[in-house]
């Protein structure tokens, strides 16, 4: 028996941890780079009724391992259950539920905006404020590349939308832990 612990646990003292965190979660998942892995993950999400908000897949420094970064809403899904189900997939090596304060998360988006001569200057000014880049200019449109947090990209979208948003493409967030770890 451990010192200092009472002999009995009173049942009324047993409590449950909350199931829903109520915030957005970024899961960083290392998987074996094998055919069908993405199908297994996507299938698991649809079968269990979990809704993925964004999904980004890419290589890591090890060619046999890929990283899947996905975001989902912790107000809707018990994240604990999601990660436990993911862990059961044999090709899933590691899952990290990224702590918001200790994480750098970035997303890239490209906006194709109608830009007539009279408002083109204003659009370019917006882009500068957001430290965005003009990557293509045509007679009636400009295309702007924005990198940043999802919040920043959404803010840019709100600013630019009144000018006539032709098309928007987003990558979904990727994330890395701050510091040495």
């Amino acid at each position, binding site marked *: 028996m451990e010192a200092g612990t009472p002999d009995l646990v009173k049942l009324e003292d047993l409590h449950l941890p909350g199931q829903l965190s109520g915030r957005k979660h970024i899961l960083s998942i290392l998987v074996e780079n094998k055919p069908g892995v993405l199908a297994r993950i996507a299938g698991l999400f649809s079968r269990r009724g979990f809704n993925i908000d964004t999904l980004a897949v890419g290589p890591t420094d090890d060619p046999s391992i890929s990283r899947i970064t996905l975001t989902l809403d912790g107000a809707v899904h018990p994240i*604990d259950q999601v990660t436990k189900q993911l862990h059961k997939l*044999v090709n899933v*090596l590691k899952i990290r539920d990224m702590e918001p304060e200790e994480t750098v998360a970035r997303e890239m988006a490209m906006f194709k905006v109608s830009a007539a001569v009279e408002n083109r200057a204003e659009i370019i000014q917006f882009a500068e404020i957001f430290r965005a880049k003009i990557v293509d200019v045509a007679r009636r449109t400009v295309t702007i590349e924005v990198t940043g947090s999802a919040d920043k990209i959404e803010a840019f979208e709100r600013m630019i939308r009144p000018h006539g948003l032709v098309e928007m493409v987003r990558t979904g967030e990727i994330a890395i832990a701050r510091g040495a770890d």
Partner: protein
Amino acid sequence: MESLKAEGVKHVFGIPGGANLPTYDALVDADFRHIQVRHEQGGGHAAEGYAKASGRVGVAFATSGPGATNLVTAIADAMLDSVPTVFVTGQVRTELIGTDGFQEADILGATLPFVKHSFQVTDPRQIPEYVHEAFHVAFTGRPGPVLIDIPQDLSRADIEYSPRTEPVDLAGYKPSTEGNIKQIRIAAKALAGAMRPVLYTGGGVVNANASEELRGLAGSDRFPVTSTVMGLGAFPASSDQWLGMLGMHGTRAANYAMDEADLIVAIGARFDDRITGKLSEFAPHAKFIHIDIDPAEISKNVAAHIPIVGDAKQVLPKLTREYRALQTDPSRLDAWWKRIEAWREEYPLRYEPGADGEIKPQFMIEAMHRATQGDAIVTSDVGQHQMWAAQYYDFEKPRRWINSGGLGTMGFGLPAAVGAKVACPDDVVVCLAGDGSLIMNVQELATCVNEEIPVKVFLMNNGYMGMVRQWQELFWDRRYSSVEMGPSPDWVKLAEAFGATGMRCEDSADLEETMTKAIETDGPVLLDVRVSPEENCFPMIPAGAAARDMVG
């Protein structure tokens, strides 16, 4: 073949076809027995029956396309009941994959939701490695089905097999089995503080071969024990601590005990909807200790106050030891037992005896228990007969009750009996069948005859798909819709046409004797027992209702 042999495989169930010709050619010289079944679904369930009876991995082969898709029901069944199984399917030649070639089906894609893991062979040198990994994944942790899909051209390649010396090590697969000792200590202390505890056990106890360890924990105090349909036999029904099965067709004593319990210890059970009924009113006064080898089961349906991830065989002795060390006063459970005894007395399982030789289904199960001395391996189909067997057969030992609990697959019983009899040739294997279910895989009678597998089929024949009829009667205003089975087939003649012995019994006075005769007759026997057509299976918790609202 060499890698299968190295895994200790002695029996395989299956059917050959174009895409697995090379595998079947190799079988000619292999020194394990192949049981040629008559439908791939039967082969799959036979592999399950084999695994459930023996505790070893069951193996089934099928060819590509329809052969493989015929396995899907068995694979899904093995997934929901955590049955260690390896399914090897043939696939069209590599260059034909993706072209909708003859007998091509994406079986890997089709079975993704139902497998514990699966392998697509793309190089013949992977085959031995994948076979060993498949057995490892199927058998360890929470057991389950693993599929290996091998294109025809790759299975005919000659490769060197060098015996494996290292144990299988998969980076993404490390089941925890021991159980966190701190959590176990807290659990012991909570148990010591409980006034109305219940041990709620499931198929995980059987899978872990932890019956003895369960008896150890139950015996460390007078803990009442109940079980799901999957866990029957893990705790002896003759024990005075046994409450009977719980859930939809469980006993009132078991369900009321759950309803009033202050602490429920779930061991290898997963709070299925057939157990909880209306989730929001399930065990409203209880705190939960949940012991399971699969962390994802813990807090999936019912949140656990004390989660313990581990193998029941390893966790239960530790919990027993910690609990005994606390030296609790056993008399604190007296009031609880008084309450339970009162339920037992007031609501025993009971039925109106049949008059004038009428065979009541419950009586049939009791007769079966007497004729087999309660010691047969009983496989069952799905429906009323399954629930009556669970209520009335009183299983004493694990791996004697083999049924489809999770998926609820009608037609499971006969092929499962084939597998069980192959695994345990010295035991009496009885398939308790329903007339709605038996017809679904009756072709396996041919397997029994040709392969000399003497299973005894006791058909509970009420002329209906009885459980569906019961629901239509109780909840759909007796508007019977497609539940009558009609006069076809003549089961005795059908058995004889297959080359088995057919018998019939219509009088309760002859039943036990006829059953004994069926058991003593050489070879496979089908005994058609005519039971009361419209008997209902009670008690029951109507779907979506709470335990305290049991009816019947």
